[in-house]
């Protein structure tokens, strides 16, 4: 059964090389952490911060470029782009974290349990998960969202979250398997430690690094997926801003005002870049290379 993992081979994250020494995460890592922090802060406190109303039209300031009044300019209805980006981050942040909460909440315990217990339970769950892994999540997500109307943020989080369970399961199970036969686990068993103790005190701390770096990359993937859905008009409805639907709305106005496209695109890419970079750095920092996912 383990072999199936490689054969279905959902894009394997890079696990080799990177010879940097452990001990330093580098300045870029902390810049990314700070950027991520700013984004999350903005998303949480968007309505407390002194921002113009992201939905308020202002016909005397249409398609303005960046200025002191409107930091990132205004769109075709005179709405403040900076404010819309900050409010838009709420969608990306909540879909990213919410969906991964569901994915990890279900996938991680199942994966650990399956890898620890093995046997019939493992076989059944793993086969089932691989059946669901066999086709791209985006099709399942689009299919369900197109029939399950009307669409809401909660439904989007739920559908993407459920679709991510098999991916999380696969990674956590593989990580647990690689730890399960290590000496320290066997030593704990020999000493008569309870299953609960082995799982929480021996296995969990050791698979946490894999889990965290996969969590960050998973959030990036989910945010991209929501962006694509929004771009296709299948996420939350305008006028409520999200990065994806801002980019979607900008595409007809590109020749008049390219700022409308550039700023939300930049916001999304920088957010994704910091997630990916932090995840990648953590993985090489904890030297996860031995865990062949």
């Amino acid at each position: 059964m383990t072999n199936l993992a490689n054969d279905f081979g959902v894009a394997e994250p890079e696990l080799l090389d990177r010879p940097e020494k452990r001990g330093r995460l580098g300045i870029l890592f902390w810049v990314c952490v700070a950027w991520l922090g700013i984004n999350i802060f903005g998303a949480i406190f968007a309505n407390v911060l002194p921002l113009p109303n992201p939905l308020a039209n202002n016909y005397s300031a249409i398609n303005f470029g960046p200025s002191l009044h409107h930091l990132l300019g205004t769109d075709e209805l005179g709405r403040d782009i900076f404010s819309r980006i900050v409010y838009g981050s709420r969608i990306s942040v909540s879909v990213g974290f919410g969906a991964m909460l569901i994915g990890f909440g279900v996938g991680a315990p199942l994966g650990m349990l399956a890898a620890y217990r093995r046997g019939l339970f493992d076989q059944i769950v793993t086969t089932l998960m691989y059946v669901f892994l066999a086709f791209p999540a985006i099709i399942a997500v689009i299919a369900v969202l197109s029939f399950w109307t009307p669409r809401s943020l909660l439904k989007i989080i739920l559908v993407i979250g459920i679709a991510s369970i098999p991916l999380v399961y696969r990674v956590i199970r593989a990580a647990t398997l690689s730890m399960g036969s290590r000496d320290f686990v066997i030593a704990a068993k020999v000493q008569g430690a309870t299953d609960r103790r082995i799982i929480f005190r021996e296995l969990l701390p050791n698979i946490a690094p894999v889990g965290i770096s996969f969590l960050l990359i998973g959030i990036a993937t989910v945010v991209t997926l929501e962006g694509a859905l929004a771009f296709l008009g299948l996420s939350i409805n305008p006028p409520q801003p999200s990065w994806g639907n801002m980019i979607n709305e900008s595409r007809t106005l590109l020749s008049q005002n390219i700022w409308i496209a550039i700023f939300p695109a930049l916001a999304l890419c920088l957010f994704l870049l910091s997630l990916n970079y932090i995840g990648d750095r953590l993985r090489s920092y904890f030297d996860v290379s031995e865990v062949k996912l």
Partner: protein
Amino acid sequence: MAVIKYVARRLVLMVGIIFVISVGAFYLIHLLPGDPATVILGGGDTPQARAALYKQLGLNRGIVIQYFVWLNHVLHGNLGTSFITNESVVSTIKNAFPIDVEMIILSQILAFAFAIPLAMRSAQKPNGRLDKTASAGSFTLLSIPPFIIIVFLVLIVAVKLKIPNTGPASYVSIGQDWVVNLESMVLPAVTLAIGSFVLYYRILRSDLISTLQEEFITLARSKGISRRRIMWRHAFRPSSVALVGTAGVNIGGLIAGGFVVQFLLQIPGLGFTLIDAINLSDYLLVQGIVLVISVSVVLINFLFDFLITIIDPRIARD
């Protein structure tokens, strides 16, 4: 022998997966709010149309029987007739599908043509200047979603540089004018190729680096075989297993990734047709496309699994 057994096992699994997909695709209609027939028929709710729909989906039967009524129709190549366009779902899909195939083939040619030579160069001098630049570049590209790439490609190429036949709605079918067809396919193919390129480059590079440390490579070197020959004849094949596996999954994903590209450029492939059908509440068409895409993805995965066993027959043995 082992290969046959392996393929047979895979075949059984594939049939199982397709069964699950078909169940999922059928019961999608029961996610619709209220009575599915009323929602699917929409404005065209005439007694005749209702009767046709009931016959197609077996809606007057029990919920389990419904699936088999529908499955029976599907296996006979009948996915129903759209109540919005009055066209058969199968013929709509038949018209759209080749466009996706063309787009994906073009993008994969581009992706492999750049990824393989670059990965070979990078792997020969890990952490050299070229390797560092290419790795950093590919990492950055990893964080740019295709829908952003296509928007800016259209902005630069079609809007600013005004290169003809690259903007939205410039697609013509390959039978009509193949030159214009290819021109209109450039931006979609490049967009899809960028994502694939990044993936292939990163995987092939890291696999090549570990292969090049193996003893048979040292032996080949000590025999005085040229570097070029070592790379292509000795190192490439053992390093390409993960690449082929990834390509299989990725190509399956591209059918879905093509959505945004087709949507923006109004290329009438499956993705565009699907989004259009969703917006028109043409649920039978949505259901048909979802089924066809999912089954194709599974078939592609199966095909690539088979390819892997040809590259490295050891995989089938354990």
